[in-house]
């Protein structure tokens, strides 16, 4: 299929449909709204169901029910709506019910929300942050796959620019490999046979067929998330060989940073950029190796918020080089998108100032 | 132990009571239409008193219906018993209401 011009929300919707998503529920909230509208149009065409839920709380719980019944299902919102969904996302993580949450955030201020859970309990959510629409299409299919592989909710950290940008993209069904059977899913057919299934908080099981119980269940979940952290971290690098100044950014900020890197390379600066593609698990090892490979005088963190990802960067760099913020709060008047700071010129100014302060080694 | 019957003595059925699952809530006592259930004085293994059956059960299942702890099996006799249904000396003494 040739690339066609698609809005990011439409492209994500098409990718979700291609991935087999057949149930979607959401509550309108910009800039997530377009995705909901596209799903409302597309899912009935493929025999699926899209619910215009009465609240984010209802939407995510509908999705939890659909996913527990075996469907590939997804919901979405942005910051405030995602906050309302956190309780159910935590429940799904602890009950091991897989679905995808499309967080079309209004900016980058929800990094903590996306990576620290926010619900209750010892859980994490695999969170992918695409840099543009094309990558959002790839990530969407990957997230459904990872959700089913690990029986866990997964999150796309998109934003205004992913949701509202039109770009030429191809949406093709991708084979991401085999997955375990959904033999845990509820279909209601085993009542009275002694083999009925329960999806139960703390994995209590049935009285005559007890589950592992909370202690063993939670320890197993912790092991599962450890395994994901060890194997699923993804990252991207741009011109990091011999880079003396490394800029770390995520999501749709990264193309701006890469653009600045190219400009400054042309001016003779030895500079490169690093992007966590998975926000959780954060690619700690890859970032540490990049910094350790040197000659890295400093790590600059560009994020359009008051400083959230920088915590993860500092944990990964672990003192190998100074880690300094060059981003900041920047919101436009509508509250919908990153304000003046998200521009190549503004980033370039800040990078140049930082280079002056910490000269190349 | 006297076998003197002091009550109506048509007995149409009986119950089996899992006395050790009983929690002694007494809901079956007033629920019984012929009033043939009384609470024991003795306590079961959990420390609860439990119901005892007198002659005159009609196998109506009301006790079964109201019991939250599922202690009653109910049997209906093919032929009613006229007179005492007791099959020997009572195993338990009912509680003295005084």
């Amino acid at each position, binding site marked *: 299929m040739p690339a066609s011009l698609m809005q990011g929300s439409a492209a994500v919707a098409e990718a979700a449909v291609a991935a087999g998503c057949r*149930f979607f529920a959401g509550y309108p909230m910009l800039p997530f709204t377009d995705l909901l509208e596209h799903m409302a149009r597309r899912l009935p065409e493929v025999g699926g*169901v899209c*619910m215009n839920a*009465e609240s984010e*709380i209802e*939407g995510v*719980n*509908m*999705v939890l*029910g*659909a*996913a*527990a*019944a*075996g*469907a590939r299902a997804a919901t979405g919102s942005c910051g405030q709506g995602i906050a309302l969904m956190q309780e*159910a996302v935590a429940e799904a993580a602890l009950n091991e019910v897989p679905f995808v949450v499309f967080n079309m955030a209004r900016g980058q201020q929800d990094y903590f929300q996306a990576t620290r859970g926010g619900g209750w309990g010892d859980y994490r959510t695999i969170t992918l942050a695409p840099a543009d629409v094309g990558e959002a299409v790839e990530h969407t299919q990957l997230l459904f796959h990872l959700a089913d592989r690990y029986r866990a909710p997964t999150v796309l950290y998109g934003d205004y620019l992913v949701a509202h940008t039109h770009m030429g993209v191809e949406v093709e069904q991708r084979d991401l490999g085999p997955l375990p059977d959904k033999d845990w899913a509820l279909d*209601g057919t*085993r*009542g*009275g046979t*002694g083999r*009925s*299934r*329960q999806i*139960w908080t703390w994995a*209590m099981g049935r*009285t005559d067929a007890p589950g592992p119980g909370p202690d063993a269940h939670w320890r197993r979940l912790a092991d599962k998330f450890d395994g994901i952290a060890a194997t699923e971290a993804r990252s991207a690098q741009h011109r990091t060989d011999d880079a003396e100044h490394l800029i770390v950014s995520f999501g749709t900020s990264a193309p701006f940073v890469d653009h600045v890197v190219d400009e400054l390379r042309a001016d003779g600066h030895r500079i490169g950029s690093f992007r966590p593609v998975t926000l959780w698990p954060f690619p700690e090892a890859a970032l540490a190796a990049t910094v350790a490979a040197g000659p890295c005088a400093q790590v600059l963190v560009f994020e359009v918020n008051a400083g959230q990802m920088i915590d993860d960067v500092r944990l990964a760099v672990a003192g190998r080089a100074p880690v300094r913020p060059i981003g900041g709060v920047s919101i436009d008047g509508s509250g919908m998108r990153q304000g003046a700071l998200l521009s190549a010129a503004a980033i370039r100014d800040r990078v140049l100032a930082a280079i002056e302060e910490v000269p190349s080694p | 132990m006297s076998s003197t019957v*002091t*009550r109506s003595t048509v007995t149409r*059925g*009986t119950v*089996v*009571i*899992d*006395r050790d*699952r009983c*929690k002694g809530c007494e*809901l079956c*006592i007033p*629920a019984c239409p012929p009033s043939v259930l*009384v609470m024991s004085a003795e306590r079961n293994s959990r420390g609860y008193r439990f119901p*005892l*059956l007198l002659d005159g059960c009609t196998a109506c*299942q*009301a006790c*079964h*219906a*109201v*019991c*939250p*702890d*599922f202690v*009653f099996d109910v*049997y*209906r006799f*093919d*032929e009613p018993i006229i007179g005492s*249904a007791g099959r*020997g000396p009572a195993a338990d003494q009912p509680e003295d209401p005084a």
Partner: protein
Amino acid sequence: MTTTPTTTPPTTPPPTTTVPTDAPPDRPSRKVAASSAALQVGEDHHLCPGCGHPVAWRILLEVISELDLARRSIGVVGHGCYTNIVRLADIDWLQCLHGRAPAVATGVKRVRPEVAVFTLQGDGDMASEGLAEVLHAAARAERITCIMLNNGVFGDTGGQMTAASVVGQRTKTSLEGRDPATHGYPVPVADLVSRLPGTAYVARGGVGSAGAIAQTKRYLKRAFELQVAGAGFTFVEVLTMCPTGWFVPTAEGPGYLGATFEATFPLGEIR
């Protein structure tokens, strides 16, 4: 309204003999009622003496069994004392967050329309935490059956006031009794959902007596029959006893239920 705890005397005069009840009769007879519930697995539950919930649970399973729905049923439960007893039933269950069961059941039903999907929730779950969810499910004519076990109290947390506690009811958060001036009025969930055009059936039953239990079972049966027929949203409220949370002797539970709850929430088919 206050109730003074008393000790209930046996209602029978002192008998002189009792009938052995430790084994089936040795004369020709047939078993007309079994102690174990339909579809019951396991032995025991840990609900309090005199609790009304297990009775409602038992008739629910009888209905599922009698309508031959055992192999196409999924129950969605919230949080409360009753969730413990749910683990004794051999059907598919999904436990969800407090109050959200109607939304979760919506997702289940839309994915598996051939399955009888029902929620089992308490009044704290449905009337307090999740009132929006049940009203919206009813308004959408969602083809599910929602069952609210209403004892007017948060039993699982030890006896606090819910949105369905009746006026005058003493709870740990309405020590002198629910006072409208301070605590407002109880929410009649069944009446609310009955006003919505998506609702196909609404009834309110109770488990205070054998007759009421039989009637409530008929309500549940009707609700499931209509769900399977695709008629729309169906709802059964079941008034149940919580002598622990009401601070009354177990034997007085049905009496308290009748005098307070049934007076506030009349029994019968509403829609």
